[in-house]
């Protein structure tokens, strides 16, 4: 976004009782200097001045807030858990000295985000195992003391992006206008009035644009994409710094049944059949090889699904027809469907949708 300051700036008044028809006292731009420090000498009273004030090396909040948000992104929660509130109603940092040190270091590095991220992910705190004994979980259920590695459910966008990536469907193209991946075709029915102006229909994308990262998905605030919605993506009506992370049956239904994830399961099945089998599919999804018990459970399931689809070839064909990407014709329908039913399980594993 580009904006230009008006010259001279527009006069601004307090609007009495909020009414634009009753202008009160004339006011100028300013900041709470007594609380957060003086406006820089000679800085203009506009957004440039504000930016200079915010990034003064002795500003008490900016770098702490920023560092804390990157910490939150990596660890699931900030050192100050109320990352959206450092004020009187916010929480104390769990490690105040660490926060201060990181904040100072961040300023001294010239606000180098990449260096900060590198420092965080290479720390031994971050690299700890997420596993914990029942005693440890009982003593520190929220892991505020960081005696174990972070473990939290992935954000909505990444859950979809990851399914696309694991299955090989993801198109990593960067930039460009928003895209319209699959959503239920009747989603707007009974809600959105059909009209000639934009935004009343969902012009589903074709080809590669179906499989772009979720950050490129067109966002209709009044009726957001249901997969994003179900996994706690905010509706973007107000600014949300800290997302809730819920665990609901609707999430289970989405991952189990939504065509986006069924299509991804089928493409993952194709990769597995042509590649290293079930163990390979498991590895693509979790980043580790399955242990023998896990592999055995998946193999048993595959046998069951094979037997079931042998009796229902029409069902097998229907399952592998879900999604826009064509099914690999070199694999018999029954076989591909049976594998799809198993990779469907893999994509639903807690480990897959959880960062740990």
């Amino acid at each position, binding site marked *: 976004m580009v904006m230009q300051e008006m010259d001279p700036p527009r006069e601004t008044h307090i609007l009495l009782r909020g009414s634009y028809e009753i202008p009160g006292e004339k006011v100028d731009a300013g900041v709470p200097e007594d609380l957060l420090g003086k406006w820089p000498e000679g800085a203009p009273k506009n957004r440039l001045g504000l930016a200079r004030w915010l990034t003064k090396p002795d500003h008490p909040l900016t770098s702490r807030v920023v560092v804390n948000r990157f910490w939150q992104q990596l660890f699931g929660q900030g050192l100050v*858990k109320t990352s959206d*509130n450092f004020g*009187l*109603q*916010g929480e*104390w*940092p769990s490690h*105040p000295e660490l926060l*201060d040190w990181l904040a100072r270091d961040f300023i001294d590095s010239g606000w180098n985000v990449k260096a900060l991220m590198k420092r965080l992910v290479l720390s031994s705190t971050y690299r700890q195992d997420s*596993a*914990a004994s029942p005693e*440890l*979980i009982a003593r520190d*259920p*929220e892991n505020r003391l960081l005696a174990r590695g972070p473990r939290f459910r992935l954000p909505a966008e990444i859950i979809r992006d990851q399914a696309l990536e694991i299955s090989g469907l993801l198109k990593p193209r960067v930039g460009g206008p928003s895209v319209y991946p699959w959503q239920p075709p*009747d989603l707007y029915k*009974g*809600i*959105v009035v059909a009209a000639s102006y934009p935004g*009343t229909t969902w012009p589903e994308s074709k080809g590669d644009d179906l499989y772009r990262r979720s950050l490129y998905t067109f966002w209709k*605030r*009044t*009726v957001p994409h*249901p997969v994003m*919605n*179900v996994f*706690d993506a905010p*509706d973007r*009506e*107000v600014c*949300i710094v800290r997302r809730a992370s*819920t*665990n*609901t*049956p*609707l999430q289970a*239904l*989405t991952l*189990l*049944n939504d*065509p986006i994830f*069924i299509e991804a399961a089928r493409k993952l099945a194709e990769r597995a059949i042509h590649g290293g089998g079930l163990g390979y599919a498991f590895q693509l999804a979790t980043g580790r090889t399955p242990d023998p018990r896990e592999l055995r*459970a*998946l193999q*048993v*399931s595959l046998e*069951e699904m094979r037997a*079931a689809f042998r009796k*229902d070839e029409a*069902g*097998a064909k229907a399952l*592998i027809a*879900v999604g826009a990407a064509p099914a690999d014709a070199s694999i018999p329908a029954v076989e591909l*469907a049976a594998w799809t039913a*198993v990779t*469907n399980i893999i994509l639903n*594993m*807690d480990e897959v949708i*959880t960062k*740990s």
Partner: protein
Amino acid sequence: MECRNYSRFTSRRDLLARTGFGLGAAALHSLLGSTPATAAEHQFPNFAPRAKRVIFLFQAGGPSHLDLFDYKPAMKGRFNEDIPPSVFGTQRITGMVAQQDRFPVAPTMYGFDQHGQSGQWLSDRLPYTAKIADDICVLRGAYTEAINHDPAITFMQTGSQLPGRPSFGSWVDYGLGSENQNLPTFVVLNSLPGNGMADQGLLSRLWGSGFLPSRYQGVQFRSAGDPVLDLSNPPGITPQMRRSQLNTLATLNTQLHDRVGDPEIETRIAQYEMAYRMQTSVPDLVNVSSESQHVLDLYGPDVRKPGSFAANCLLARRLAERQVRFIQLYHRGWDHHGGLTDKLPVLARDTDQPAAGLIMDLKQRGMLNDTLVIWGGEFGRTPYAQGTMKPDSYGRDHHGRVFSLWMAGGGIKPGYSHGSSDDYGFNVATGGVHVHDLQATILHLLGIDHQKLTWLFQGRQFRLTDVGGGVVHEIIA
């Protein structure tokens, strides 16, 4: 750099509310609320509730109080006269009529009569509502601050004209939780008018949870296809295969839990089982074949038409029976700027019999005592005509200064009329009920002190009733 601006002055409830998320035990209170209302996470109800659940029959578009509930004999015979300036005052009017030279009185063309022992005044467009006149309490002095649909509906549903706040049902879910393990706590049902003409769209954010966690958002039950999105198995996956898949999944997740120890995994396993149960409970809910003809007849002929207001009223009763906490219906098409006399009878017909039938059905099952039903829209309509006017053909603009709605059951005084408008149905005369008062009263009936139901966001304790609202004790039995 010193960290001075921190405080430990957070309340116990803040702490519990905040630490609840991402934790296995507390997360068990889920969208499908496996935690009963007494969960430690909540301190509600604050006192004995009169209502256990709410059915909100929202009439989107702004039904005309002057043609339905608010009898104005003084307007009769004043067709095409100007509204006196003493009544009109200096009030804000919408841009749609701002260009009109004058604001001529448009008396209703419908007959009004008194009904029941209570002598409730109702228009002849509401013959079935007349039959429940002694069960309902009509609020004739309701008023709102907004003058257009989106802000006005948002105001009614969230307590703020600006989007971003949690919906009414989300607040109630957050406060009280669920008493049903297999269905969502907050369910939304939409219907279109019988003439198919809905001038205004809806917004799914109206049942969004705003800044509350998304598990409190309303779940829309759809009338065609899957009643809940992604409820059905994909094609080719039979229920037996799904069961087998879930068993394998549970095995894998249990092994993971044994190794990692995170209680969130146990919650996830439980949620998959709940999803599986929902695949049965939701189709059972929407399958009305077991309803007797006698009951179906109460709701009128449209009850067999999926997605109609009548069908949704019947579903609302079935949801209420299953202890669903907040059932939000939307019926659209009340925005009668022009041709009101053609359109209003259609909308009245759509809603009159089903809403009355719902009350009678709840009553015969002994459920009206603890089920609160509300019928009303975001505002009323002007006593002056918009556009060209004939005695039997006129339109009315939006009007928030006063309007009518009715409530029944759940501790509401039956056969009662509260508040009134002036001779033109333009301003509140007595018993004004602001939208926040209405919200405070509904929460009160649910046993919630509206000033205590709060959520800390952006440094402020937010409430459904924002910074206002008072309980209207006069309408409580």
